[in-house]
């Protein structure tokens, strides 16, 4: 188990280190090549070391642009996860961190783009200076190449009487370079966490500028501005011997005029595979859009929460997964992700949607959740569903004891899990390893309890019917209340059912004391493997991780807490 735990903690580090080392290798290898390669000797006379900087960062850019589309090819990831045996456990969980990897690669693109752009600013300036009247001997001779009929040019800037800006904008490479940079900047400014949270739609729509990005990237190298000596010319014109004899190039047969050609564009070769793969993803999404989704039940819960129960042909899910939903009558372009709240054993799948923005509010209105007259099911707006995607919470079943902690709306994946747990224990009569589930829900608003409280109530009654009441132990923590509520709670303190939820288990007030909780669990289950699953904010995640380390015993036979944070 210790090996398992070391492996699961080190896989993300290994992935990042391998990505970083490939980048560093490509950069240094290309850099050294362009610094030493003879064919680029004359180019280096004009440009200096910035040629190598620009080319090395370009290769890294190619590599990262190839990678960036892979983590968001969700069907591809689901395929990899489903088919290969090696993708269980720690490797499978790594696939769940796809968005983190996407962001990492994006930062890689940003850094390399910055190096590339700065290097090319220098390059353009130096090309321009090569045409200056006071340019020194070899530099001037090289810059004049191309003026005579049989010569191929080296310096793309042909005259001093121009500006570097103009020279940039008249070339394909320059203009596409500007377009690519702009696209990248627009994508990055609209993808900050603040913008994603305050306006998901802006982030979603602006991100599609990546189409412009990739098209421009493919034609960016087409200008063939970076030029090196052709192999044939290298054979006839020995650089080491001829570089000082530039005055004699036109005349002497020893040193014929060197010929140059531009490098073929190669970005498209790197990016073609992933672009095709991603195009397939969007085609699959379109095909799924065409598939019929039958809405079987619509429930409007308090606190502006809408529950949609649907059926779709061949839909198979696992607890903890999510789907994308599109409602063409609201917006024909937007797909929004929602976690599934039904169990795999049920013959329908459901989501609970909270009104949190334009699209969700419009959806609630469309389904009559805002107090309008009840609508017939056949007059409901049509929905399209893509998915399910994401890692599953099935790992919960593989521990002796599992502790599930959720805050606020983060309870949704656990709703699916708890339902699944009920089916597993009450219908199949046996659970492989799991003997106890602790569930903690920390919530600010009592109103949000309603839909989940029903689930807990039915679980509570059915488990006690089956004699399995000991399997699930849950604690609900209410962290926000006003004085009236406090008075009401105090008055009904001694009753057997909780006044807020109606459950036998009383609601706690304030935040949980994790030290006490973990201490108690460790005491109750010595020498057990305990999995801790959390869905919620980062600060609490850090606290819980610390608790897991603190209360895991140093003895390999003692109690061990294994922390799993999932992004849902």
């Amino acid at each position: 188990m210790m090996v398992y735990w070391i492996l699961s903690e080190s896989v993300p580090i290994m992935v990042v280190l391998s990505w970083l080392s490939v980048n560093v290798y490509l950069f240094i290898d290309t850099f050294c090549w362009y610094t030493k390669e003879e064919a680029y000797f004359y180019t280096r006379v004009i440009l200096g070391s910035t040629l190598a900087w620009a080319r090395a960062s370009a290769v890294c850019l190619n590599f990262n642009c190839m990678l960036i589309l892979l983590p968001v090819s969700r069907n591809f990831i689901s395929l990899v996860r489903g088919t290969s045996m090696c993708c269980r456990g720690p490797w499978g969980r790594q696939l769940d961190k796809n968005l983190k990897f996407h962001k990492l690669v994006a930062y890689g693109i940003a850094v390399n783009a910055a190096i590339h752009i700065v290097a090319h600013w220098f390059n353009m300036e130096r090309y321009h200076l090569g045409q200056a009247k006071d340019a020194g001997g070899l530099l001037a001779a090289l810059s004049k190449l191309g003026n005579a009929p049989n010569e191929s040019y080296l310096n793309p800037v042909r005259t001093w009487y121009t500006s570097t800006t103009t020279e940039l904008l008249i070339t394909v490479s320059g203009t596409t370079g500007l377009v690519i940079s702009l696209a990248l900047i627009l994508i990055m400014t609209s993808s900050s966490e603040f913008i994603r949270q305050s306006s998901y739609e802006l982030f979603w729509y602006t991100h599609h500028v990546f189409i412009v990005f990739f098209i421009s990237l493919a034609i960016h190298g087409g200008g063939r501005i970076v030029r090196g000596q052709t192999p044939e010319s290298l054979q006839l014109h020995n650089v080491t011997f001829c570089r000082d004899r530039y005055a004699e190039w036109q005349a002497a047969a020893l040193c014929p005029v060197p010929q140059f050609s531009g490098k073929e564009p190669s970005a498209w070769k790197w990016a073609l595979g992933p672009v095709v793969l991603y195009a397939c993803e969007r085609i699959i999404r379109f095909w799924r859009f065409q598939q019929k989704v039958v809405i079987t039940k619509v429930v409007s819960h308090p606190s502006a929460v809408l529950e949609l129960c649907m059926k779709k042909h061949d839909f198979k899910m696992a607890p903890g997964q999510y789907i994308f939903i599109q409602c063409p009558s609201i917006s024909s372009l937007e797909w929004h992700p929602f976690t599934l709240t039904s169990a795999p054993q049920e013959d329908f799948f459901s989501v609970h949607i909270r009104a949190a923005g334009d699209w969700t509010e419009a959806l609630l209105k469309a389904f009559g959740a805002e107090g309008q007259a009840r609508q017939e099911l056949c007059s409901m707006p049509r929905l399209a569903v893509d998915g399910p995607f994401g890692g599953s919470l099935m790992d919960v079943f593989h521990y002796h004891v599992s502790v599930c902690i959720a805050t606020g709306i983060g309870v949704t994946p656990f709703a699916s899990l708890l339902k699944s747990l009920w089916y597993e224990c009450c219908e199949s009569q046996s659970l492989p390893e799991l003997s106890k589930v602790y569930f903690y829900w920390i919530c600010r608003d009592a109103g949000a309890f309603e839909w989940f409280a029903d689930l807990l109530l039915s679980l509570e009654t059915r488990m006690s019917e089956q004699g399995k009441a000991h399997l699930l132990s849950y604690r609900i923590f209410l962290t926000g209340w006003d004085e009236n509520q406090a008075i009401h709670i105090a008055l009904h303190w001694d009753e057997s059912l909780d006044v807020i939820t109606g459950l036998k288990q009383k609601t706690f007030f304030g935040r949980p004391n994790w030290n006490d909780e973990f201490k108690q669990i460790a005491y109750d289950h010595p020498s057990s493997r305990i999995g801790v699953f959390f869905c919620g904010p980062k600060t609490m995640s850090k606290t819980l991780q610390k608790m897991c380390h603190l209360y895991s015993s140093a003895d390999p036979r003692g109690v061990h807490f294994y922390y799993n944070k999932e992004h849902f």
Partner: protein
Amino acid sequence: MGQIEWAMWANEQALASGLILITGGIVATAGRFTQWYFGAYSIAAGVLICLLEYPRGKRKKGSTMERCGQKYLTTVVKLFGPLTRNYYVRAVLHFLLSVPAGFLLATILGTVCLVIASVIYLLAAIRGEQWTPIEPKPKERPQVGGTIKQPPTNPPPRPPVEARKKPSVDEEEAASAGGPQVNPIPVTDEVV
């Protein structure tokens, strides 16, 4: 896209443009490019823009994530009153600041980004948005005895809370203002 606050994105875009202008300016000045003085200008303009845009404005709905340490700059930016509050002014300012940087290759990217930020600010201004500083919440000093409620005005036996709350405010005022004590629930003496 109805409820999006464009100023939030304009702010991110302008801040990024400021940084790009500074970078381009440093490269041009350090490398002594032709017309490098435009680079020196870009550094100054970039710094001004970053200082102006660093403090994030308050969102109309919901909570706003403050940038680290922005409260010092918030006080400075707030001093300029309508000049910094109004997004039309910001749109025009950014547009004007971007123009000189457009003459140099190293800063042209910053120019284009800043023009885009200016356009988004114009859109925000047309929609009536404006910059509101994020004020720190005044610390509520715990007032000693402030939460202690008034003792009950009627002697025991007292009816429970629900019954006590039933009479309307007027009746309560009449009851407690003057005259003899009137019990809300008739109390009978059990003595036979």
